[in-house]
């Protein structure tokens, strides 16, 4: 790729298929195993009755990629993610995982939820992690092996026999991650998983996520409204327009070495660019909500 703008490669999505042409450049750490699945979204739209949440979504996510969906709150990021997980169906266009249409929830498409309410509070941490394997009828001995491996991966072996209610917020999100990985999915979908955590815990878990992702080699789609989080984690960042009827506004390739350094000048440049890009959408959303952005513009002019 060209070194003209080092580390950053922006493309504006013109609503067509041009986005798919983006070159994915080599990253610092190559994933260990190539078990990731490729996700392909073509002309997808999602409506609830008369309400159009998202429309005209084109995304080609190659196997093993870490993609961040970034956008103002309420723009339909989570809706799009729910469709990728098979919880809701696209009303138009297609959505495929490794070429097969996504028709419903699938162990191949794991989901880490924003709220730890998604954990089963009546099961121990270990039983939560082995839930998927148990449903598939895996033997007890094999389950123990799985629990050991994935609790070890997220550093929670010592909490195996505790209940989720006895853990901190950060630990609970780790349990969610281990529970999903125990199913060995090709795609891991993460819906603002660290949004409710304090800054320090969030930072630790972001680093953990990068490490786990490079060890597992699965494809990750990560929804966030945190620009720094996206820069820290993503191979590519898809910025969404303000909803309703949101679509993908632009797509950035984050070609920075891993582990990422936030103070890298290229990272700072990207950060400003993303901030401007999203700021525009946030202001648009606020105008739609009837809020005046006069002060905002004055501040910007000053």
């Amino acid at each position, binding site marked *: 790729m060209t070194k003209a703008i080092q580390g950053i490669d922006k493309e504006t999505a013109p609503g067509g298929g041009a986005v798919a042409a983006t070159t994915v450049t080599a990253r610092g750490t190559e994933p260990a195993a190539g078990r990731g699945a490729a996700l392909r979204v073509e002309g997808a739209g999602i409506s609830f009755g008369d309400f159009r949440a998202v429309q005209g979504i084109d995304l080609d996510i190659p196997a093993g990629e870490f993609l961040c969906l970034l956008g103002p709150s309420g723009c339909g990021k989570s809706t799009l993610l729910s469709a990728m*997980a*098979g*919880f809701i169906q696209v009303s138009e266009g297609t959505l495929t995982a490794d070429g097969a249409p996504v028709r*419903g*929830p*699938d*162990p191949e*498409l*794991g*989901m880490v*939820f924003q*709220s730890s*309410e*998604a*954990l*089963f*509070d*009546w099961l121990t941490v270990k039983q939560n992690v082995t*839930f*998927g394997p148990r*449903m*598939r009828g895996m033997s007890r001995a094999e389950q123990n092996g799985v629990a050991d491996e994935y609790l070890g991966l997220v550093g929670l072996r010592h909490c195996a026999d505790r*209940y989720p*209610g006895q853990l901190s917020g950060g630990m609970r999100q780790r349990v969610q991650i281990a*529970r*999903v990985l125990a*199913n060995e999915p090709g795609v891991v979908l993460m819906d603002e998983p660290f949004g409710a955590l304090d800054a320090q815990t969030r930072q630790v878990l972001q680093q953990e996520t990068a490490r786990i992702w490079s060890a597992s080699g699965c494809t990750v789609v990560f929804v966030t409204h945190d620009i720094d989080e996206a820069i820290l984690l993503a191979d590519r960042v898809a910025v969404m327009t303000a909803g309703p009827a949101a679509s993908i506004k632009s797509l950035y390739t984050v070609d920075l070495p891993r582990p990422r350094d936030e103070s890298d000048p290229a990272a700072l440049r990207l950060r400003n660019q993303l901030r401007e890009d999203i700021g525009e959408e946030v202001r648009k959303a606020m105008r739609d909500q009837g809020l005046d952005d006069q002060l905002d513009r004055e501040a910007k002019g000053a």
Partner: protein
Amino acid sequence: MTITTTEAPTSASTGTRPRRSKGRAGAQALRTIGLYIIAVLVGLGVWQLLAVKYGPALVASPSETLSAARELAADGTLGNSIIASSRRILIGWGLGVVVGAPVGLLIGQIRIVRLLLEPYTEFFRFIPPVAFVTLAVVWLGIGESSKVVLIFYTAVFIVTLNTSAGVMAVNESKLRAAASLGASRRQILQRVVLPSTVPYIVTGARLAMGNSFLTIVSAEIVAAQVGLGSLIWTSRNYGRIDWVFVGIITLGILGLVYDRILRLIAMRVLYKYGAKV
């Protein structure tokens, strides 16, 4: 610029804290018990005053009630009444829970079942069991079954309604998580919906127990030889106000005891299901 760090002294304070808090918890428990005793004594005092004011023909005093209770206990009436009423309540209530919980699960989980059964649950829950006393006796005779059925009737709807409310309150993300972890519809019902609903079933069972005590008196109005309800009703014929008082107070104490037992079992067994009891 220099940065100084000060380490907080930790060892000194930790040693004494647990003991102090244990002492405080003990004092708290003592205070609670003390207040309960005061409340009961005040109640007894008011009761005594009313008895003095209106006389034994209208209000039996605490001491008269106590001696009446001794009298009824001595000839076995009180014990037999407690056993007979308890049996009816426990059988009727138990059947109510056993039938109500699964029906509630189905109503909450399956739309068609809900739509088919809702008209009935919504209709019958407004008809008090006392309205069915006559029919129960005519249809089922004067034996045990008519009383048990009335208790069952009063218990089953409340358990059903609570359970179905619990099913509908199951967190959506838990259901989605289970589905995406590969659980089938049936596995989701057994492994996610049922355990999430357990606290609601327990609440329903406790409310149903209360209702069963409300119903036992009317269930025993007609043609019950023995039982706390029948004790209250037949005492009227003998003009024994003190026996009526014994029956009422025994009902209250028995209900309290059963509820405490239920709470204790629920706390032990259902702790991990998050049942707050």
